[in-house]
């Protein structure tokens, strides 16, 4: 019930932003976020950014999973 995709904010105009996912851009409302800047990653759901991606946590998660990859062989 939550198709939400992480995308990068590439442009902001007032309460709206253009968000890029792999080269596809969509206009998205930022009205549910306290603040957002160009370059931030946000989760897009039904035309709105619903949360910012905490990149520090993201990188830690990636590191954790890559750590498991070593053990999988």
């Amino acid at each position, binding site marked *: 019930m*939550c*198709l939400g995709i992480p995308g990068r904010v590439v442009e902001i105009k007032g309460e709206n932003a253009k968000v890029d*996912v*792999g*080269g*596809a*851009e*969509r*206009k998205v409302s930022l009205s549910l976020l306290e603040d957002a800047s160009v370059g931030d990653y946000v989760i897009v759901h*039904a035309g709105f950014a619903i949360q910012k991606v905490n990149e520090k946590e993201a990188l830690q998660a990636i590191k954790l999973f890559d750590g498991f990859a070593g053990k999988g062989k």
Partner: protein
Amino acid sequence: MNEERILLAHGSGGKLSHDLIENIFLKAFYNPILSPLSDQAVFASPAGRLAMTTDSYVVNPIFFPGGDIGKLAVCGTVNDLAVGGAMPLYMSVSFIIEEGMPVEDLKKIVRSMADAAKSCGVTIVTGDTKVVEKGKGDNIFINTTGVGVVKDGINLSPSFIRPGDAVIVSGTIGDHGMAILKERGGFDIPVVSDCAPLHELVRDILSTDAGIRAMRDPTRGGLATILNEFADSSGHAILIEEEKIPVKEAVKGACELLGFDPLYLANEGKIVVVTSKDSSERVLDAMRKNPLGNNAAIIGSILEGSVTGGGVNSPARPRVLLTTAFGNTRVVEKLTGEQLPRIC
């Protein structure tokens, strides 16, 4: 023609109809078979087996990045002939126009068709025009019939497909589907429709003299539907690998955003070929040398025997299996209904 918009009278057979045909259609499509504007086109029958196809084009929007309904109508018809191994020769074109359609738009579409026909070497030899009341037609519908000839020795059919055969796709999938969706609004990608005539690519493929079993162009319903048709017609299951299927990054991104699957998106300039295993590299090379086949790739193979699926209640039928980039193998069904954007 002075009118800005198409009127009902343009379809009634009188003076305005005549003006329309002379000034727009004949002017663009001019050739000796068409020019008498008879009720029928008469031409010498070419030697060899004839191939014939018919199609209707109802795409909305009628103008999209990479083409329009006119270019689509010509290329689509040519391609249906080409994938049967036929050299396209002649076409008929039937227009059903909605009252009020801007004449400029019609001129653009007709120009597109003329250009496409010229580049394909196909002649538009006969046609028809009807106009329906405003609200009873979606701008314009185009119906075509195409006639081509199949050289001796060319025999393509899914019934020739054998276990071990290779499955090749000629390039990136989902471009046309995404271009149409983009035009309907909501998002932007640097992707245009792949609408193109494929007869020369087919000629290059067939000239390798290799064990080509069958070819299809994956239009509505996408790659998944074509592969299912091959499986059903041949009686053999097919295994494809996700990582080998060419998809543009931006198409992947748009699919994520909208909840679509590129396997089910429409294409208008791609071919799926099944060839014998031994000839697959040779065919791939030939395809890659053609500008429309630069990104051709071997994406899978035909399996031994049919594969029954589902549980107790599911009828046995050959299946299309996909090994995902993630490493699991799952079934790929035909498209049912429309792909609708998911939110949830």
